[in-house]
């Protein structure tokens, strides 16, 4: 389970630079790919079973095969490095420490798609990573991996890095394209999909950093070899960004299929809970996916081991499962206040809603307000049902998935931690004037709810 294909070279001193990267086998996949038939590369990626690493998990090879090659319009590959999902910081790690891996992947993938002009769209806050990539791209140009007639093959590719301006919504692919065109990041109505009409109305594929960085290995070792890594339909390795109350937060690459328990407790990965406090909840795939309560983390509702795969993390649907999402693994111990945390997320989505669709623009704000009054001891018992009602009316009723992403954390918090909301409402004096997130573990006060005081 310790196999690494993305971060295997990360500890080589100077791997950030072109020389060291090249000396350690870098750009070999480009040499190989440029001699291949572009469609054969797409077939290899299809065979590999690689699924989009940005959150949706859509098969990468399939996405590539949708690109419109018939119209004859110029095609583009755009790398989504807008990483803004709370809990996720894996792409930043990859780009910061081994930028040439992404560039190598961009060249191979662009060649497969027949794109001659490609972009990496990076969030504006990662400005120093933007500069790192700019320098790495210059190095790649100087070494003849980019530009006209690459290595005498007749293939031309220009690659540039583009920075955003601080908007979560630009991680949505059509909003990202709008932003790349120099506009507000308002998602487009689909269809037409970007594969037909994307950047400047040209056929475009948008892929996550980690997806593109996986392509060089697939080209070098074949899709079939890649499909042997991992478990079932969750092929390959996956980067997890670990944060919250664990001993060793950080970015880890694992072969999919490991148990959640091993990942959480082994010294090689999370290293167990900080101060050995009890585990209370886990968000396995970034803030948008449902939180899992303690009893559903290591085992599924059926009593099977919960595994680090797309299927196992989603086992039980949203009733008793969650989703692998972007791999933003956020761990909460018993001191975390679920109500405050849910309010915190709702504030995030309210702030980040682009404002195009009223259910999301208004609904996220209402949820934030209702949660804030519950958190501050001014809630009413009917507020819990009100929250449920609002979230259910946002979900599925918006142009882009931000609305769903805002609704799910609220729904999951109520589903699994309803008594904590009730506690806030029934015992306002006990929760007023707390020092932000610092509070007594809910387990210690839970018994109060049993006494019927109303």
């Amino acid at each position, binding site marked *: 389970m310790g196999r690494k294909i993305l971060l295997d070279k990360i500890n080589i001193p100077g791997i950030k630079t072109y020389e060291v990267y090249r000396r350690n086998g870098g750009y070999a996949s480009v040499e190989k790919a440029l001699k291949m038939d572009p469609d054969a590369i797409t077939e290899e990626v299809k065979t590999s079973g690689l699924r989009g690493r940005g959150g949706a998990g859509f098969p990468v090879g399939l996405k590539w095969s949708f690109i419109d090659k018939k119209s004859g319009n110029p095609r583009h590959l755009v790398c989504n490095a807008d*990483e*803004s*999902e*709370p*809990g*996720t*910081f894996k792409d*930043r790690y990859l780009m910061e420490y081994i930028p040439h891996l992404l560039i190598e992947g961009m060249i191979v993938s662009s060649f497969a798609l027949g794109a001659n*002009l490609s972009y990496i769209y990076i*969030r*504006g*806050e*990662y*400005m*120093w990573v933007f*500069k790192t990539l700019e320098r790495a791209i210059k190095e790649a140009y100087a070494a003849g991996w980019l530009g006209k007639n690459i290595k005498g093959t007749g293939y031309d590719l220009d690659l*540039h890095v*583009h*920075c*955003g*301006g*601080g*908007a*979560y919504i630009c991680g949505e692919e059509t909003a990202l394209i709008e*932003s*790349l*065109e*120099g*506009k*507000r*990041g308002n998602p487009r109505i689909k269809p037409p999909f970007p594969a037909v009409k994307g950047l*400047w109305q040209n056929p475009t594929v948008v892929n996550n950093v980690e997806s593109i960085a996986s392509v060089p290995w697939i080209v070098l070792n074949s899709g079939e070899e890649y499909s042997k890594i991992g478990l079932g339909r969750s092929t390959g390795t996956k980067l997890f*960004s*670990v*944060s*919250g*109350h664990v001993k060793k*937060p*950080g*970015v880890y690459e694992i072969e999919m299929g490991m148990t959640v328990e091993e990942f959480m407790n082994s010294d090689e990965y999370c290293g167990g809970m900080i101060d050995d406090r009890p585990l209370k909840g886990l968000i396995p795939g970034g*803030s948008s996916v449902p939180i899992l309560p303690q009893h559903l983390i290591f085992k599924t509702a059926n009593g099977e081991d919960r595994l680090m795969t797309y299927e196992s993390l989603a086992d039980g649907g949203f009733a008793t499962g969650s989703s692998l999402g972007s791999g*933003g693994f*956020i761990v*909460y111990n018993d001191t*975390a206040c679920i109500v*405050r*945390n849910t309010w*915190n*997320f709702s504030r*995030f989505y309210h*702030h*980040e809603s*682009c404002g195009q669709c009223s259910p999301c623009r208004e609904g996220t704000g209402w949820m934030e307000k209702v949660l804030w009054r519950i958190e501050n001891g001014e809630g009413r018992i009917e507020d819990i049902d009100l929250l449920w009602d609002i979230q259910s009316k946002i979900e599925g009723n918006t142009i882009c998935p931000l609305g769903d992403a805002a609704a799910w954390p609220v729904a999951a918090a109520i589903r699994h931690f309803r008594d904590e909301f009730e506690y806030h409402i029934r015992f306002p004096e006990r929760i007023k004037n707390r*020092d*932000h*997130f*610092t509070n007594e573990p809910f387990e210690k006060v839970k018994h109060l709810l049993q006494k019927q005081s109303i």
Partner: protein
Amino acid sequence: MEKTNYKQDINFTPELMARINELISHYPEGKQKSALLPVLHEVQDAHDNWLSLELQTKVAEILNIKPIEVFEVTTFYTMFNQKPIGKYMLEFCVTSCCAINKAENMMEYACEKLNVKPGQVTSDGMFSVVGVQCLGACGYAPMLQLGDFYHEHLTKEKIDSLIEDCRVGKIILHDK
């Protein structure tokens, strides 16, 4: 609502113009509007980290687009400042992963130390403190952004020394 029209000295140096032209060259002929966001970052960095209406209009002129096309972008994205900010803006991430690691307490500490409220500028114009949404440093919480760079695993001592470094001019804001 009445809008205060803040005044700003505008100076497009040859270096800045060269950089702007380089950014424009990254996009096909006629698609120069695409360069808007990267250009705004460069222009803002070179103008005390904020963009007056005059400055935004000038950017529109350079890119050969309508001023409204610039205004609608600067008002959408949080990184473009519409009014003067402190020379050193401490942007604390206050989203969940940082918040459970006491980011809010760290931000309060900085506010108390500098005697400002979130969003305000100190009277000497040196500092401002703001809370922002997730910056993608969740595993290294609590953290803040200052200029182009992140400062992670914050403690009160680290905030003290960071503020001191700003005061004596040891902090570089932008990687040029």
